[in-house]
């Protein structure tokens, strides 16, 4: 059994497929072609990304409210002057 055959059998096992010898022969060649083709990904010459995004997810602990209903959310003291619901800031909360 060639090294390529062994590779296809191993990959098929990982993919939960049971290929017969005929399929192994067929996919062996196809997979080798694809591997040779996608190898060019390592050679793609795009410029490095110079702009980076420094933002990160800011998580807030889950809090369960048992003493309010949806109507409470729209009490006047929870709304700002424009009628928008006031919620605690998330981004930059710690600063």
């Amino acid at each position, binding site marked *: 059994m060639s090294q390529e055959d062994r590779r296809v059998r191993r990959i098929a096992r990982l*993919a*939960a*497929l049971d*290929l017969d010898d005929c*399929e192994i022969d067929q996919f062996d060649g196809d*997979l080798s072609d694809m*591997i040779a083709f*996608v190898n060019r*990904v390592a050679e*793609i010459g795009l410029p490095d990304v110079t702009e980076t995004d420094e933002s990160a997810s800011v998580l807030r602990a889950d809090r369960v409210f048992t003493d309010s209903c949806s109507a409470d959310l729209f009490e006047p003291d929870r709304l700002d002057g424009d009628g928008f619901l006031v919620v605690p800031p998330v981004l930059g909360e710690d600063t």
Partner: protein
Amino acid sequence: MISDPACGSLLIRDDLNAFLYVHGSRPADPPEPAAGSLAGMSIGVKDNIQVNGMPMTCASRMLADYVSPFDATVVERLRRAGTRIAGKTNMDEFGFGSSGEHSAFGPTLHPQSADRAPGGSSSGSAAAVAAGLVDAALGSDTGGSVRQPAALCGIVGLRPTWGAVSRYGLTAFASSLDTIGVMAPDVACTRRVFEVIAGPDPMDATSRAFPGERKDDRPGDPDRPVIGVDPAVERVCDPDVLQVYRNVVDRLTAAGFPVRTIDLPDPEDMLALYHVIASAEAASNLNRFDGLRYGLRERNVIRSRTKGFGAEVKRRILTGTWCLAAGEGNAHYRTARRVRRQLAFRVNALWREVDVLLTPTAPGVAFRLGSRRRPLEMYRSDQLTVLAPLAGLPAMNMPVGTGSDGLPVGVQLTGPAFSDHSLMKLGMELETLMGTEERNG
């Protein structure tokens, strides 16, 4: 002949094998509503999108007996707008293919020539629209599956911005690339359907509302967008396609559109990048088909998958598993993800110079069934369409002419994210310029 004796609302002569299921062919099918902004319009739905009560096979033996228990969001919105869901259209199995030949239920045939491929994977949707069996159709586009068959069949095919249309109810192929797109005879019809299905959906966390109009601080006429062309893409195209493409560029230039030369990434590089990412995601997504919860059930999971999947699906799963396997191709997968980010930055930088990219959609016209036996030959059909999905951009095929044998040729307009409406506006102008408005209308 597939007819509708129960409802009398649809009669389809489907010599093309474009449909896998036609509404009304089962007595239990409910009648369709008739009021709304798209009232009376008949729509074909690709068979990887859920339509409540209809089978959804993804053109695979794996799902041959599966019946959808709910409507995809796009279908629900179309029903509310008064459309008639005509049925489920044939496709390459699970979306893996560019010819319509990889269906477990037989190939779709090209409406103009029965020995040619209509393209894929949305083969049945494209053939049904081109043959006039339906007014419009939904397809899905991961690497070009709406635009390439639209080009080969001579219709309009829109791949929306990633996130502009909900994918709830679409069978996942490669989640970071998948979109649901519209196929129709002309841009006006495409636009009407798109406006109904677009918009955020609480059932799909990746769906988004359209942001406001892009502020354009570049000088120039906003009604004459700057069109970017890359002469390098011409080397991958057949002479027939090139001739039509150059004619389009000449017409746009003569009509006063500024045309500027730009430098796009190499199409072969983009195709390789696409196949690493798409195959890896596909292998992961298709793990759910194990025969335990739904689908073909054999003695064990391995036998269910082996018997249920066709050859092209197995090939893609093997490639994807190789890309994700430690000690095999997982270094490529990590590299591909990095290169994809670099690509998005590079393409977004182009929008400082141009408003729209113009390329051919497919390198050639509809090819003969069975003529592309080697997988890589087939995959190269998509080398001009993979850029938009990799960068999350909208792109649209426009039918603009025919080759020497009378088969359709299309060009592709690609724009910045959420420029879908601008693309369609330019598409309408292109229809007028090329005289295709009258032909299609």
